[in-house]
């Protein structure tokens, strides 16, 4: 769209105000916007100008002096069915539970609808008060990984989008659905608006739109939802102009919603794979990260149908095969004669959905992000597939595959499969117990040490939560990854995995997002929180308290960005300049940060710092009691580095 057309449509959007007519202040505001846009069309560089003084209309608006048109009767409102009410209706119909935002004038209309629309006033989506846009989007990221459904985040103009940029980037790399709405107000603070606001994050969002009408806005939100949940899943962004939020909707209806259809393998491919699975004497299924819990359930059905031993990525991230399922493990024999991968490499056939590289056309300025764009990163994007890869979504392929396998099943095969499955179960059980005993032998090292070993944190937690419906929301790689050996990851949401793009400031807000999901589902969230990570945006602790979220935070407080400390120490050694200054810029000392006090400042109950390992177990019990009451709790534990 050309700038002159933008100006035209900008004025057109304000037609409802013209119709209502009358208020001189409103007319003044319109005039100001039109002039600004016209100036842009003439090639003026707003960036080179000093910030313009507020117009008379803006001053009036700020002062709240705009009065209802005189043509209305006393008590009658000019707008009785604001456009943003319909936006909320669309979100509600899509099942969006939460919408996190840090207040901003560019979405004041939408925010008012979220809190007041309907009778009784709206409760879903519930407005979640975020203290930073980065936190709001990372909440959606954590929620998306726990549920496979988008949560919404509100971003205020250009500044909100930029605050959110890193977290959008992480959700994108993590292929996690999230629905972002950015308010735009061309008539208020010039620096908060832009012609193409989504352009700032286009190269790392799945889809975006800047609708020109209310009707388009409603359709755009629906499409953004669909794009977010369609592989490759990811964050999507709709820019919603303030005028459309405030426009009188009159008799406009919410458009009918159509769910997306994700293509899977065809009937021929299903027949071929089902036959191979059933003909094999020792088939193997490798399950990576599927899209939803339904996909996980289907993978379990198929593995049970064919009696295949199965591998899982449940200890690395969400939506994979249950770790304790009897078929999960190496099986009775590792001489597999047919291997099938679902979003995982396999020797024979792998079904792998579209990757982020299919979205490269959105990177119009050729930023070329590593691991997505070809030839960018020396680190590469992972191992090459070993066998034949069918580039098709695995989850969407599973229903026809299960159906076809059932169709080809014979009583003889069924009997053989049952015998095989029994052998696999026994072998897997033995292997699992051997691995556990071996892990315990390793993890007893430093059991009574102070500072406290990270293994002890995970070991003490497990018996306390094993019978709970829990989510481990924080990445565990920096904390030793002890959950992988000590805990059972049996639910699609047991462990939410890493940050997405390795960006810090993720653990706490992602845990808040997971806890939002947990709250309405009777679950609890465990956040083993690294100290460096928490300090990026600790305000999320307040959000957790304010919304009474079931989140237990256990600090892995090693008083450093420890990975970086080791890197810098290595460099000191390589260059022969000594390691006694390696702590500069990599440690959090002098003073030590008191996380219990930090939590208390945000209203969160907690205790610590704990240095005596014998006091850890009781503290964890107290924390869980609090969390089950809906009161988040933080335990500051002074730990060994790793």
């Amino acid at each position, binding site marked *: 769209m050309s700038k002159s057309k933008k100006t035209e449509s900008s004025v057109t959007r304000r037609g409802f105000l013209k119709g209502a007519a009358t208020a001189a202040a409103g007319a003044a505001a319109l005039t100001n916007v039109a002039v600004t846009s016209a100036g842009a069309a003439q090639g003026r560089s707003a960036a080179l100008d000093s910030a313009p003084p507020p117009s008379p209309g803006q001053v009036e608006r700020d002062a709240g002096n705009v009065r209802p048109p005189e043509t209305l009767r006393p008590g009658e409102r000019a707008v009785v069915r604001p456009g943003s009410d319909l936006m909320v209706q669309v979100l509600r119909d899509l099942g969006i539970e939460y919408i996190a935002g840090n207040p901003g004038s560019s979405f004041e209309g939408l925010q008012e609808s979220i809190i007041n629309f309907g009778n009784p006033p709206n409760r879903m989506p519930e407005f979640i008060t975020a203290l930073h846009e980065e936190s709001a989007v990372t909440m959606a990221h954590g929620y998306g990984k726990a549920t496979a459904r988008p949560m919404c985040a509100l971003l205020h103009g250009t500044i909100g989008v930029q605050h959110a940029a890193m977290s959008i980037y992480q959700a994108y790399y993590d292929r996690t659905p999230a629905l972002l709405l950015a308010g735009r107000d061309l008539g208020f603070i010039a620096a908060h608006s832009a012609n193409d606001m989504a352009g700032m994050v286009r190269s790392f969002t799945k889809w975006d739109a800047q609708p020109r009408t209310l009707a388009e806005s409603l359709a755009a939100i629906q499409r953004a939802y669909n794009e977010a949940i369609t592989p490759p899943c990811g964050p999507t962004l709709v820019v919603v102009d303030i005028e459309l939020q405030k426009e009188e909707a009159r008799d406009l209806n919410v458009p009918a919603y159509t769910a997306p259809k994700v293509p899977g393998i065809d009937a021929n491919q299903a027949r071929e794979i089902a036959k191979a699975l059933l003909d094999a004497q020792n088939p193997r299924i490798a399950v990576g990260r599927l899209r939803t819990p339904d996909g996980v359930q289907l993978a379990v059905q198929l593995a049970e149908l064919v009696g295949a031993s199965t591998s899982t990525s449940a200890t690395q991230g969400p939506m994979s095969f249950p770790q304790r399922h009897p078929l999960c493990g190496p099986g009775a024999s590792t001489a597999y004669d047919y291997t099938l991968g679902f979003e995982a490499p396999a020797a024979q056939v792998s079904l792998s959905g579209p990757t982020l590289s299919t979205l490269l056309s959105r990177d119009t300025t050729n930023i070329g992000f590593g691991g997505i764009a070809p030839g960018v990163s020396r680190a590469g994007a992972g191992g090459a597939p070993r066998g034949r890869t069918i580039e098709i979504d695995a989850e969407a392929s599973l229903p026809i595959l299960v159906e076809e396998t059932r169709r080809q099943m014979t009583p003889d095969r069924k009997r053989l499969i049952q015998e095989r499955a029994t052998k696999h179960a026994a072998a897997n059980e033995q292997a699992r117990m051997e691995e*556990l005993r071996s892990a315990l032998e390793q993890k007893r090292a430093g059991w009574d040490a102070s500072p406290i070993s990270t293994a002890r944190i995970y070991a003490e937690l497990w018996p306390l939560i094993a019978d709970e419906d829990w989510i481990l929301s924080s990445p565990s790689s920096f904390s030793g990854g002890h959950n992988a050996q000590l805990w059972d990851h049996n639910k699609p949401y047991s462990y939410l995995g890493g940050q997405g793009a390795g960006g810090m400031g993720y653990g706490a807000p992602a845990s808040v997002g997971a806890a939002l999901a947990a709250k309405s589902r009777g679950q609890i969230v465990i956040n083993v929180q690294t100290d460096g990570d928490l300090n990026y945006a600790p305000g999320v602790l307040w959000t957790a308290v304010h919304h009474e979220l079931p989140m237990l935070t256990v600090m892995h407080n090693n008083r450093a960005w420890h990975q970086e400390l080791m890197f810098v120490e290595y460099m000191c050694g390589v260059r022969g300049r000594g390691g006694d200054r390696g702590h500069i810029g990599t440690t959090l000392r002098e003073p030590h940060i008191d996380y219990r006090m930090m939590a208390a400042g945000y209203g969160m109950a907690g205790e610590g710092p704990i240095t005596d390992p014998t006091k850890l*177990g009781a503290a964890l019990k107290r924390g869980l009691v609090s969390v089950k009451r809906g009161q988040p709790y933080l335990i500051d534990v002074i730990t060994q580095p790793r």
Partner: protein
Amino acid sequence: MRSRTQIAFTLAAAMAALAFQIVPTHAQAPASPATGNPANGKKLYEAYTCYACHGFNGETGARAFVSNRSANLATESSFIAFLRARANLAPTQPSTRMPNYSAATLPDAQAKDIFAYIRTFKSHAPPVDQIPVFNQILTEAQKPYKP
């Protein structure tokens, strides 16, 4: 010339790294004398952030000292030689391997103090079956799987 130097450095680094991996281990704890001052060694151990990889007590981390029978820890001289023989060319990717400690920045006397401190490390870990939480974990593991 530059590339040859790089290759030489890389080879030296690789050999040093390899030495750390393949030096034969001792079946029993070394008995050679430690002549340094362990109290000063403790200060140096912390100042040089040895704890980063070896744990504050030598019991945890990526390279715990307790139960480490590497020949590099057998004697003061082998320890010092090991410190001096680490890589002096950085790989392109960040590394968490053992850094080099040159004599110019960590004199032999200080290295001996650190060695003496390392020698004080002992395992305080109870056997697995005497850790109640571990027994609970084993009990949990034996419960039948519930989808």
